[in-house]
């Protein structure tokens, strides 16, 4: 039994925005896999619900002639895992999506919910960060588009105004064409687990040198984080095993892993460094610059 105070089923994004604006205490419910857990715990902030589950306008995945990929916020992890536009162009996001929970959660959980929930562990976050994704928000004040890394503001906190709905996530062609990428989720179990550390990396390599490196982590700070300093250092570095050492020695400077009962700080730091190497090795293997 859930202790709802109010519940509205929105028939469209615009109606959802209007409903949210009417009641500042209300929150959107998409797949509900985060919201229902809170309701189960009788959480005070989750008692007014605007249901956007199943809205068609949020479920589309498209690629325009310029190569811009647009993913509706209501797309489920299962769809992300299987959709040819995702697996064919940005398989790293499919890797992230397929690592979520179990089949039931993937069938209902949405990428929009994953991002808006603001969890430092969100499995779609690290892949989307290295894809330089932007998020599109629509509210009573109109529509705006901001980079994902700016959308994240703190643990459980995102830059969403009360009336806003995240409508889609956008990935520009220059962020996936000519890139090799990989996501690795490190967890205590191989299913039904949140990441101890998640790591996504992408490399753009020219003539044996790193043109650009992108590296992002989950659970290595209050929000999912990009490794800006390390990315700078890696610019122009040799794309071989020396890169692994270079990144390993730098990556901790970009991150702030916590010491908690779930995992100690030194263990997380060790995993962060190990994953940097494993993810980069996998990327180098992919682009054939380094023989396995």
């Amino acid at each position, binding site marked *: 039994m859930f202790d709802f105070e109010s519940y509205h089923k929105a028939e469209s994004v615009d109606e959802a925005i209007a409903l949210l604006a009417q009641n500042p205490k209300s929150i959107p419910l998409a797949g509900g896999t985060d919201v229902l857990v809170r309701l189960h715990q009788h959480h005070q902030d989750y008692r007014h619900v605007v249901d956007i589950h199943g809205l068609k306008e949020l479920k589309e995945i498209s690629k325009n002639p310029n190569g811009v990929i647009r993913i509706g916020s209501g797309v489920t992890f299962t769809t992300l895992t299987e959709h040819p536009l995702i697996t064919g162009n940005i398989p790293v996001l499919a890797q992230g999506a397929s690592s979520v929970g179990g089949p039931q959660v993937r069938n209902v959980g949405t990428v929009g919910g994953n991002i808006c929930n603001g969890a430092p562990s969100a499995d779609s976050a690290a892949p989307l960060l290295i894809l330089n994704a932007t998020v599109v928000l629509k509210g009573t004040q109109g529509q705006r588009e901001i980079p994902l890394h700016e959308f994240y503001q703190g643990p459980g906190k995102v830059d969403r105004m009360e009336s806003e709905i995240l409508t889609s996530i956008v990935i520009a062609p220059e962020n996936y064409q000519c890139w090799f990428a990989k996501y690795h989720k490190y967890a205590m*179990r191989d299913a*039904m687990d949140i990441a101890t550390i998640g790591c996504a990396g992408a490399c753009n390599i020219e003539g044996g040198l790193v043109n650009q490196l992108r590296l992002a982590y989950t659970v290595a700070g209050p929000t999912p984080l990009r490794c800006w300093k390390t990315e700078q250092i890696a610019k122009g570095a040799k794309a071989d095993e020396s890169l692994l050492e270079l990144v390993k020695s730098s990556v901790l400077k970009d991150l702030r892993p916590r010491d908690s*009962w779930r995992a100690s700080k030194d*263990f997380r730091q*060790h995993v962060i460094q190990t994953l940097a*190497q494993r993810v980069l090795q996998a990327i180098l293997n992919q682009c054939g610059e380094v023989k396995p």
Partner: protein
Amino acid sequence: MAVGKSVQRKDGVAKVTGKARYTDDFSMPGMRVAKYLRSPIAHGRVVRIDTTRAEKLPGVDGVFTFHDVPKNTFATAGHPFSLDPEHGDVADRLLLTDCARFQGDEVAVVVTRDDMTAHKALSLIEVEYENLKPLIRMQDVLAHDAPELHKRSRNLIKEHAYTVGGDYKKAIEESDHLIEGVFETQIVQHCHLENHSSYAYMDDMDRIVIVSSTQIPHIARRIVSEALNFPLSRIRVIKPHIGGGFGNKQDVILEPMVAFLTLKLGGIPIRLKLNREECMVGTRVRHPLHIQVKAGISQEGNLNVIDYDAVSNTGAYASHGHSIVSAAAAKTHYMYPRAIYRCRARTIYGNFPSAGAMRGYGSPQIIFAVESLMEDAARKLGIDSVDFRLKNAVKPGDINQIGKRPIVTAGLIECIEKGRDLIDWDKKRATLQTPQTGPVRKGLGIACFSYLSGTYPSCVEPASARLILNQDGSVNLLVGATEIGQGSDTVFAQMTAETLGTSYEKVHVVSNQDTDVTPFDSGAYASRQTYVTGQAVMRAASELKDKILAYAGVITGMNPGELDIDEGNIVIAKSRQTAVMSLKDLSMDAYYNKNRGGQITSEVSCKALTNAPSYGCTVVDLEIDIPMCKVKINEIYNIHDAGVIINPLTSEGQIHGGMAMGIGAALFEVLMVDPDSGRIYNNNMLDYKVPTIMDIPGLGSGFVQTHEPTHPYGSKSLGEPPVLTPAPAIRNAILDATGIAINELPMNPKTLFTHFKNAGLL
């Protein structure tokens, strides 16, 4: 012939189609829900409790606290009553407490019209606590100035010590090597799919009916009677289908409370069901043990002495208390019975959830220590791990040193050999270079166990079976033993069919126990039912058969001694193709002939006066990714000497389940308690890492079928044993791969990280 065949489970179709009804599937008009108020602190006294606001909330039928419950303490462990007061369980529990002894202790209870109202009512109860120092670490519990969890207990429940098998000192002196180790095992939880749930009502003003997910309906009835000072004969306990128990329902947890509440509230039906978070703290857990082990060994590898000193922590309330460590210590002696054993064991209290029975009953902990030490010994002597165990393993005719009784069937040596061959031990051993280098290293491990098939002579072992011949020639079997998923109904039907000479399909097992109806049996625990209840079933079946044949004699005028039953027909024993009449015709005559007969039934109630050790081992081949701190099991086998296997398929299922549980305890699971505050961190399925299907490797099994003469079909225990050896086998394989001995559980990535780092591998 039904015994030895992989017949389909009696309850299989009902369970997979969702037709099987569990406690929560029943409801009654006007049923109310009860919910506990649980203590937020691990240790403290309630100095003020005010329930007035909660009582005034609409939809609240009652709020009860410590002040309202009977003041007699009772014991909750699901043991049969002991006529010897010295052997009884510790009675340290009240229905509700004014002293919180673990985070989650039951301070008050509300009865309301629905869950939501219950939740709101709980939030309206005001409680003030006086904080006491939580005692979690062994040294804190046993400190001189430690506050007592229970008055006059000194925080110690019981201790005992003994030496058996010969002159300890001499054997130590004569040993060329003394090997020692200290081992720590963790708190794990059963995680059965169906949480604890019970409801109760009164169907007149005299009698309380309790429907409960319990392994022990008859024992529950007695304990409710003790807890409420209410006549036993006026309590009826019904057990529907059960979604697993693993020992956690061999304890009386909710039944006294629902009985109390319905009694207080005029007999209305009241349900008390725990959610997962409550179930993980408010029921029982496995005892964490601290074990010091020493072994004396000759240069040739003969094990002269095993000496262990174990401290078992039972948590907030005694529950099964000291029985756990003492049973486990005793059962382990059957493995290497030619050695001298010295044992010292203590059981203490601590401010965390009560530890009780859990599959293996202390043996997983003790065997983890002993079999790890055996590995260390083999390595020190440079003897192959398999050979070392073969040299010392039990042989038929060896004497168990505690009971001074000869061991009749013992297939441990064959189990070890079979395991060695299945995993290709010798060949793999020859190719593994030592020491290994590189990030990924491989290892082989083995561990052995011994166990018993019930609790005799420590406890009474009663069993009963009633058989009724139906009009259509089929039979109904009623037993007090409980099907809890392990498959006991199925094997009882097989035994009945075998002895009676009818087909398995013609035996219907009444699966739901009802203490008003089903005959007495103490229930599902100690891997006892196939062995103990099987004896009653066999005797009831042969009695029924005698009665049927006698009646056939009455009808036909033939000599019953020349008749037999074959596939549902009365046949001439010497020419079995000749059917004299069908069982159906015979039964119709018995039921309806105006001048003779009557319903043909048999009923046997007996006690097992024997016990039989069962044996086996786990062998494992694994690899470790050192930087990732992760173990990957390549191959793992459990080989069992459980006597004659009644049903190979369900036996294999039982082994797979036990191995998965053993792997969970080895590599994943721990209920985390903050040693300073007693806070429980992870009482949920996200943070308590019970392995998923993705985490469990392919599981292999094998049998060595001895024929146990004390059992009518030659069978021995198989329920608990599969869980006993995966952890030490895995520990030994990790040692093989890395040279690092991990003497604590679980060996999860966090533990491996610490050990690898300390050893300079990272």
